[in-house]
């Protein structure tokens, strides 16, 4: 069906890490200007800037919700440096979804939000 792929559908059905954190070190929220979808990502850091916990809230389509869940699961345990080095194309490829160009931004929105949050954290200003 509509090429979303089993992995995204699985995370859509059973979202992991949905919600918020009591005292996140990193948080960011943004919208997809094409459709108005909104994603918020929150990160709790552990030692060595390693992601101890990640949470998301997604007011978006199946792709956006599924990708948000997959992303938070994937980055848990990674250092911020490793996340920053993660190419968008790799994340996109790992989703095993057959996406048309107009829908690619649906799955990349959570990654963009995460990166913007990390960039703000790096600049040392409170988000």
């Amino acid at each position, binding site marked *: 069906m509509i090429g979303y792929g089993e992995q995204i*559908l699985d995370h859509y059905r059973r979202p992991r890490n949905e919600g918020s954190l009591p005292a996140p070190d990193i948080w960011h929220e943004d919208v997809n200007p094409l*459709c108005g979808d909104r994603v918020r990502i929150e990160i709790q850091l552990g030692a060595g800037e390693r992601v101890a916990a990640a949470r998301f809230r997604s007011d*978006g389509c199946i792709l956006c919700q599924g990708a948000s869940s997959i992303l938070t699961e994937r980055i848990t345990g990674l250092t911020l440096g490793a996340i920053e080095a993660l190419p968008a194309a790799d994340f996109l490829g790992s989703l095993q979804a057959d996406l048309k160009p107009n829908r690619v931004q649906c799955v990349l929105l959570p990654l963009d939000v995460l990166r913007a949050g990390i960039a703000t954290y790096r600049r040392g200003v409170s988000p």
Partner: protein
Amino acid sequence: MTPDFEALRKDFPILQRTVHGKRLVYLDSAATSQKPGVVLDAIRHFYETSNANVHRSVHTLGEEATALYEGARDRVARFVGAPRREGVIFTRGATEAINLVAASWGRSALKEGDEIVLTELEHHSNLIPWQLLAKERGARLVFIPVREGEVDLSALSRCVTRRSRLIAVTALSNALGGITPLAPFREAAQAAGALFFVDAAQAVPHLPVDFGRIGCDFLAFSGHKMLGPNGIGVLVARPELLESMPPFMGGGEMIREVWTDQATWNRLPWKFEAGTPPVSEAVGLAAAIDYLEGIGMEAIRTHGAALAGGAAGALSSIKGVTLYGPKENKERGPLVSFNCEGIHPHDLAAALDQEGIAIRAGHHCAQPLMRTLGIAGTARASFYLYNNAGDLKAFVEGVAKAADLLRSLRS
């Protein structure tokens, strides 16, 4: 005599194609319309026989191209009841027409504390140019609220004051499909001494529109939504107003005499048409107008409203569907805006695409309106003269099927 809407489908070559192996059901004409063969032929014929730059060429092709381009202006003027051809300016689209007025009239006439009155319905193209202008001039935007899917006319007297300099309103909402009664806006503008701007990007393709009868000062629309090509739009304005306004863009064509340090401006309408104009696009637009008038705008309005009304009625009987826009007993344009509970409009549109059905999903370039409605977006099906009962049936069945399918993905 009622036109044969079923027969005219063969005039639109694109309707022959399939999408994912299914018959194309194109329900996104509010975004852009499909083109009949006569429009495509007119553009091709122009390039094959008369292509040249206009106005300054003395040779035969130049004369022919100029006659065709200026003939298209006369055609547009007659179609929308423009007072004089000098008041018909070709632009790149409705958006540029609005920007023209905001930049030219707005920057020269607006003062700090002045107000521009809009409605919460407006497309971003009838909002952002005024927002930019208001920021620059220290002016204020005032919004007439939307209630139950329509502009709340009872708020007009409160919103339009002696500080109002311009009222800009859509004649037909692209997001919700309501038709705006324009007379109360005209009266309010006249009483306040404000100018009256009508965004007719959705109205001109679908209903009879007469500049003089509306009694507005400016009217903007696009060619591509009314069977014409991309890249051309129209600003219709009272010529006296245009005379008093400074140029919008500078370049060739819009000048009379040029020195190194100054210039004087061409006569109307060319004062507002800098650079080589969209000649083939004007030729295509004139052919589109011929086609539309051959069918009749009143019949086109009735056809579109009937399909959209049928869609609204059928959707309301599908479980979990919320309709936005005009209520059942109110006049509506040729589109229906809706949501299915628990289903994102983009997912619905993607599922319908699998059935060959093209609809729009999202905020429809009306984010403030979506915020007012408390939603991120809607799904929108918009009809035109080439849609038929078969399209409506496919759409309604498609929505019911897609909604079931998408709900099943959750469990």
